[in-house]
């Protein structure tokens, strides 16, 4: 039965998430522009960008990067479907990592030096955020008694009340996951240059459009994870979750516009330190209560 829910969730996510993600990306660009004293593009600019990319001629170096990106898109939709149908949080985290790996494979497949560098840096990003994501899922399990997101609606108080350190740790790696400065070392929104846009060096047209759409879906999923901390049996909690997710998203944009990009060493060290302190101590605390 749960498999049917996941399938329905996946289809619904594949339809709704690109729309919501596209609007969020457009708002992101407007807010960023206003923070920089500019007017900024229209709200639907990300949609125009993707439509334009789909109109471009088909040119590819390896011939398989488009296939890898399609796989990445499918796995992203699947991860979103599992999460938003109330399924297993840990499985959602693993599947979205699978999508990241396909994206890395797509970048590696061209064998171009900048794309390989970008793929390596993307791998470092995955290495940086993955420990905290897993500890976050474990903390959720210990607080809610289940990995199933739907079970959060059975609680008499939201998990944030006892796993707020894990939430803070998750906010830290959310910056990496949303590809925001100071941790946008593999596919930055702002600097469209070779090294920090390395993964997409050899991608163009439809393949690049898939990267954009994947990023929209990812954003929606990660904001969903953020909101999950604030759910309990009260139906109002759903509204609170949405508000908190949007606040976290605005906070990430603010961070994005106010911090300079760091080297990958700093990202890896700080992310693991945060995972150990925030996630590790939270788990130890939960073991004794």
């Amino acid at each position, binding site marked *: 039965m749960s498999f049917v829910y996941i399938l329905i969730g996946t289809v619904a996510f594949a339809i709704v998430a690109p729309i919501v993600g596209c609007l969020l990306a457009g708002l992101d660009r407007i807010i960023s522009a206003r923070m920089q004293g500019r007017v900024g593009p229209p709200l639907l600019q990300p949609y125009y960008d993707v*439509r334009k990319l789909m109109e471009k001629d088909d040119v590819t170096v390896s011939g398989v990067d488009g296939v890898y990106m399609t796989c990445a898109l499918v796995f992203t939709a699947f991860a979103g479907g599992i999460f938003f149908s109330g399924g297993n949080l840990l499985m959602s985290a693993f599947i979205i990592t699978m999508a990241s790996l396909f994206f890395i494979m797509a970048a590696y497949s061209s064998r171009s030096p900048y794309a390989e560098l970008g793929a390596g840096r993307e791998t470092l990003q995955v290495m940086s955020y993955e420990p905290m994501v897993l500890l976050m899922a474990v903390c959720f399990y210990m607080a809610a008694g289940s990995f199933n997101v739907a079970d959060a609606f059975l609680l008499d108080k939201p998990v944030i009340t006892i796993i707020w350190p894990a939430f803070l740790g998750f906010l830290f790696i959310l910056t990496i996951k949303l590809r925001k400065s100071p941790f946008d070392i593999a596919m930055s929104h702002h600097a469209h240059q070779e090294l920090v846009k390395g993964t997409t060096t050899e991608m163009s047209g439809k393949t690049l459009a898939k990267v954009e759409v994947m990023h929209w879906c990812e954003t929606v999923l990660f904001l969903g994870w953020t909101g999950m901390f604030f759910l309990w049996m009260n139906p109002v909690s759903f509204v609170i979750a949405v508000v908190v997710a949007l606040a976290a998203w605005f906070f990430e944009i603010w961070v994005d516009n106010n911090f300079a990009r760091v080297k990958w060493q700093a990202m890896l060290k700080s992310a693991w330190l945060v995972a150990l302190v925030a996630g590790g101590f939270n788990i130890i605390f939960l073991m004794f209560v």
Partner: protein
Amino acid sequence: MSYATKSPWVIHYDASSCNGCDIEVLAALCPGFDVERFGIINTGNPKHADIFLVTGSVNERNISVVKQIYDQMVEPKVVVACGTCACSGGIFHDCYNVLGGVDQAIPVDVYAPGCAVRPEAIIDGVVQALGILDEKSKALKASKRGA
């Protein structure tokens, strides 16, 4: 209108410019003019770009670079020659190593003159280029349908 005109991403190459025009190209992206209002993004990658902005004249050393960037750009694409040097060679036209304007290397669609070219002239040039980009985009779509 095709979507190509709503999201023109540019790549900028300094052929042998004195940097006067280059600074004006970047000025167009700054808050004063903010060309991102029209969806214009300055990319560093020819494979992502739709509009090729060249500043400065073409010489024996950089003609291969200009050609290579042009070849790596994905259709539909347009070229805007920014500044007098890029249009005709300018005051360097009879220099021993200078071949002339950018049109000596690749087909140029729009000429934006000026020394240095004003940001308004660049934006004007790009807007004209958008019309040509629209035509090329439609032609590409028609040829795809025919094939």
